[in-house]
């Protein structure tokens, strides 16, 4: 279904391949095509249900996901679609009832290796206030590596490096109390970075932030991908945040109902509607105009839409 739709869209906009290149060059490209390498995280036919007493509620059903080094992957879906459950399965927070999740080949169900898995896949959560463990920012960032038994001098280097990449080095000796939500989330990201994971998962980490905070986090994500070659998995219900992704998994009722590039997934109107999401305004307008009989191709961003419309003149 997915393929069909994107093809249909491709036919109408003849210069589509070129455009796609334009779009990706806007976001400086990462560490080359990821598909040459082996995936860092691989989930195959994963199913998980929550049980409390007699009650069983489904989390995810038969989901397969592959995350490659240096990829920015977005898991998109509304509340209750199973996206957070999926995220928690990817670093062994939860272990699947059926199917297998491997991180660099290690099965997350293997209890003896769970610490290895967690050190390779770090996770940042929704509420920035719940993730601070220390009263001084540098101690907060040091908490992870200290627990991993990293030597003191090495920890110092890691703190500097982690705070630098999130742009918070000048706050090192400060207290987390007076920071804005976006700043706190960046500290939470730094605390994960100090453990040097290969993948960082942000579980709705932008949901409680204001637009400025969200922008800060999105910029940080692109920096991690482009400068550190890290894989980033962002769980979100904002379609806007998914526009710059390399790959999107669209979740609905515990299943991944579509996956592919933002263009492929967003032009799949049926899947977007099923998932209960709202297309970015530019995409909606471009589809409306096409329905009104104008020769306008599918646009993801405001800029693309403006270009499409100007071409009508």
């Amino acid at each position: 279904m997915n393929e069909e739709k994107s093809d249909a869209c491709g036919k109408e906009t003849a210069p589509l391949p070129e455009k796609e290149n334009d779009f990706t060059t806007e976001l400086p490209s990462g560490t080359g095509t990821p598909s040459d390498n082996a995936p860092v995280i691989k989930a195959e036919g994963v199913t998980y249900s929550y049980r409390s007493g007699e009650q069983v509620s489904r989390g995810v059903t038969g989901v397969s996901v592959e995350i490659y080094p240096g990829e920015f992957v977005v898991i998109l879906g509304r509340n209750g679609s199973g996206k957070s459950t999926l995220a928690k399965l990817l670093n062994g927070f939860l272990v699947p009832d059926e199917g297998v999740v491997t991180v660099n080949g290690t099965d997350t169900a293997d209890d003896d290796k769970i610490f290895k898995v967690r050190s390779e896949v770090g996770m940042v959560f929704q509420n920035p206030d719940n993730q601070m463990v220390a009263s001084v920012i540098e101690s907060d960032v040091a908490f992870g590596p200290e627990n991993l038994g990293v030597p003191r001098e090495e920890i110092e280097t890691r703190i500097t490096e982690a705070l630098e990449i999130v742009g918070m080095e000048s706050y090192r000796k400060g207290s987390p109390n007076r920071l804005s939500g976006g700043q706190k989330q960046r500290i939470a990201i730094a605390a994960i970075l100090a453990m040097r994971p290969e993948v960082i998962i942000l579980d709705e980490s932008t949901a409680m932030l204001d637009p400025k905070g969200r922008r800060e986090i999105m910029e940080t994500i692109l920096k991690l991908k482009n400068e550190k070659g890290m894989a980033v998995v962002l769980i979100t219900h904002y379609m806007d945040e998914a526009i710059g992704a390399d790959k999107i998994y669209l979740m609905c009722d515990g299943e991944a109902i579509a996956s592919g590039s933002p263009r492929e997934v967003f032009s799949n109107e049926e899947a977007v509607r099923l998932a209960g999401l709202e297309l970015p305004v530019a995409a909606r307008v471009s589809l409306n105009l096409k329905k009104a009989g104008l020769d306008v191709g599918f646009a993801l961003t405001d800029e693309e839409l403006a270009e499409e419309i100007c071409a009508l003149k």
Partner: protein
Amino acid sequence: MRIEVKELGFVYSPKSPFEKVALDDITFTVNEGDTLGIVGSTGSGKSTLCRHFNALIRVQRGEITVGEIRLHAKKVDLKTLRKNVGMLFQFPEYQLFADTVKKDVEFGPLNFGFSAEEADAAAREALELVGLDFDEVASKSPFELSGGQMRRAAIAGVLASRPSVLVLDEPTAGLDPRGKREILELVTALKAGVTGTVIIISHNMDEIAEFCNRVVVLENGKLLADTTPDELFNRSDIVERTELDYPHTVKIKRLLAEKGVFIDSSALNADELSAAIAGRFKA
């Protein structure tokens, strides 16, 4: 109910090293029937201003009149005021506390002197208003509800006292797109019948553009503008200096104007904008 704010000023921790001016010489009026948006970056004083409206913060300097009640007077009838001004804080689902949804929603009315039967009826009505089935949720723990349902239950708790002004501090933060739309449509429906005046604090300019008829902009505790959304988004000086975003519809119109395509329309939602563009090119 009309709210008049005159030369309002507020200082946190006055005469201490932590002294911070939160509001400075704010004057504006909220008319009966307005859906007023209050915007500004984090720390601009939006929440401090709103907390004045039901006297959670007492007036330090200046005057506020809500209907007939003068909040700057020595003695304020808090009970009447708080019954009339319903306030919903950020992430209100964190403020649910009772062991059943019914008790939670009845808490306000009972405190405002409703009888047990009246409170029961008010809870029933409020839950129906927000689209929750009374019989299904009444005896449930509020913590068994989904995120969107919890927020509705919290709104029902405010509505049960039948306020004539509803103050909402970022009512849609953290909700998914459908949840957002549901809450905003609920607010619109409430305005039609229940509460005449709504004040919304929001960071989401698309929401402000679509749902508010007026908007005030705060910056560092000062009133920067008191205008309509349409006017505001034409004032690039204000939008850019306060780090507000433009709604996408306005961004698209500006991009087109740069390229010499002028869309003569005040459309602030996707469908209206599409119609305006289609109209221009089909003519």
